[in-house]
């Protein structure tokens, strides 16, 4: 898809967003072996276009829910990089005050509902938000807020996915389901988990508009989201997008894992070739690109520094937040 209608500003923003995510995660990967981050990290490297494309078509006060593989969506939605880095380091200034860790990023300001490490649990949570929006936003200027939920191919196997899809369709909820199908659940390929690949067809049987994006095209993802959001703002029901993608690193941890034997590097190649980061970069002039790159590096350095300098939570924090008071 070519972004005919896109202003340069838009491309700049998209490039900044995706490049920033990529670089943040590369930096996490670089730091990880030094043990400053003692929390399991699930990198999105290679998959960022989905988060960036979807979220670019959302409004600030729309919300998103994510799995443990949430860095990309959290950043794309506007979650603070400093608070994220500090959370990775287990610091008191982290977005969860050191009580979440890498798998549980949240930003209520930016509309990141929170990420959950139990596969699929966040899917109905997003529908619950959508239900609340439907009730709360009847008179809202600009229409109903929308909840988008990102989940992996594996998550669709959990019963809660089917249950939520049915409920969302039945109650015409403003929820956008985004399946990031990277072909694996940990190391187990689809062939060992899915009877067929007809996920989109299945979702359609619930009366939900459902689309398949096979090539990771960020503009297509963005356009589909825009279509979905426009409909939901006016009271339309749920929408489903399945995006094929590829995880370049190991399931959890910083490294590549093609030596492990469960998949070959050749699988990654087409995805490297169609990588949206350089694609977007090439749409900008070199000066702009370099300026953005520099800004990103500076921000990352600052965020790492912030995380390093921040204090750990005090021990008395252990017993705060057990109950809301």
């Amino acid at each position, binding site marked *: 898809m070519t972004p005919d209608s896109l202003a340069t500003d838009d491309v700049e923003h998209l490039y900044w967003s995706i490049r920033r995510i990529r670089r943040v995660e590369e930096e996490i990967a670089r730091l990880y072996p030094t043990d400053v981050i003692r929390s399991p990290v699930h990198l999105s490297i290679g998959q960022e276009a989905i988060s960036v494309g979807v979220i670019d078509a959302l409004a600030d006060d729309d919300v998103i829910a994510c799995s443990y593989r949430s860095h990309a969506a959290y950043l794309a939605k506007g979650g603070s990089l400093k608070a994220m880095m500090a959370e990775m380091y287990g610091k008191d200034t982290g977005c969860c005050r050191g009580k979440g860790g890498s798998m549980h990023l*949240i930003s*209520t300001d930016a509309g990141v509902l929170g990420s959950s490490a139990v596969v699929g649990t966040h899917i109905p949570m997003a*529908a619950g938000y959508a239900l609340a929006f439907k009730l709360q936003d009847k008179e809202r200027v600009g229409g109903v807020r929308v909840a988008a939920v990102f989940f992996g191919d594996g998550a669709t196997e959990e019963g809660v996915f089917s249950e939520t899809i*049915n409920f969302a369709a039945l109650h015409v909820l403003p929820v956008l389901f985004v399946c990031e199908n990277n072909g694996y659940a940990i190391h187990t390929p689809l062939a060992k988990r899915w009877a067929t690949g007809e996920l989109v067809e299945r979702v359609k049987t619930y009366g939900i508009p459902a689309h398949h994006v096979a090539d990771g095209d960020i503009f297509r993802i963005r356009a589909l989201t825009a279509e979905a959001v426009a409909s939901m703002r006016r009271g339309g029901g749920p929408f489903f997008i399945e995006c094929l993608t590829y995880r370049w690193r190991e399931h959890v941890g910083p490294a590549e894992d093609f030596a492990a034997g469960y998949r070959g590097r050749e699988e990654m190649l087409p995805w490297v070739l169609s990588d949206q980061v350089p694609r977007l970069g090439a749409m900008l002039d070199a000066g702009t690109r370099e300026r953005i790159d520099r800004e990103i590096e500076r921000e990352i350095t600052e965020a790492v520094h912030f995380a390093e300098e921040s204090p750990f939570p005090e021990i008395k924090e252990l017993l705060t937040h057990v109950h*809301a008071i």
Partner: protein
Amino acid sequence: MSTLSNSARLLSYVDALREGAAQEMDRDQSVFVFGLDVDDHKAIQGSTRGLLDRFGPERVFSTPLSEDAMTGVAIGAAMAGMRPIHVHIRMDFLMLCMNQLVNIAAKVHSMYGGNVRVPLVVRSMIGKSWGQGAQHSQALYSMFMHVPGLKVVAPSNAFDAKGCLIAAIRDDNPVIFVEHRLLYPLEALVPKELFVVGPGKARVCAHGDDITVVAISNMVTECLHARELLSETGIMTEVIDPVWLVPLDIETILQSARRTGRLLVVDNAWTSCGASAEIVAQVAEQAGPGAGIEVRRIGFAATTCPPSPALEAAFYPNPLTIATTIHQMVRPSAAPWYFEPERVRLACITSFRGPF
């Protein structure tokens, strides 16, 4: 009951639940009630009757049979500022909700560093009698007592049913609200206006110096009957209803047990790792051996609940078995007391008739 106002009148447990919900829904637009069959003519044995007519299908609705997702939906809606009441006609069905309740509801406030709250009420009913059998009779609240982040309440009478429900709705935490089928028709004086029976205060239902009996949910009624039966022996039983199991008011129990020197916990559930284990353990720890308190637990028989009437009767503690246990504890060297069969029969009467 402690805070009786002038407006109090006799009301059944089921009507108290209904009235509490209706009044809160009136007061607070963010409260809504949903769950399987909350809006049909049976209305969860009457406890949601009239709510649909009054508040409409957006705030009172049945759902697909999808307890897992519906719990997640409730949590999401609660995080988004609503105050859902999710209703289950049997507590056994909460086993389908465990992932969301234990891994999400109990944790998000804490694991997100206080950034979100889950003001959610999960109502469910313990079934009993008329051959409910294995899967419609469980009282699984101790599982929720095990997990930090949840609150648990089990009102034993109409007054508490209303006051605790209102407190639960207003609480910013997920509250597991435990009802009992056989309590539904029982009446108490209940104020007309809104009032709360808040977390963390036990209720001394009857005073006595010989033994402290802690009774949970429906067992409060059974223990009060047992106390009656024992009156002819001169044994004075103190009956305490913890009302809220989390947070638990152990102080009231401890003080009583220190005074009487005997603690019997009569639970409406299995004893192993149950509420009764927790209460006995806390008393044993905190009172210490110097207090010389004798402790005992009774609860469901340690097996699956059978439907056959004779076996079913033997599965539960009842006024006679409770009274006999109390008598043994208070007068260990006396001969077992003979309770007049007609009085026992009257004490043990339950009016419930099936199918459900």
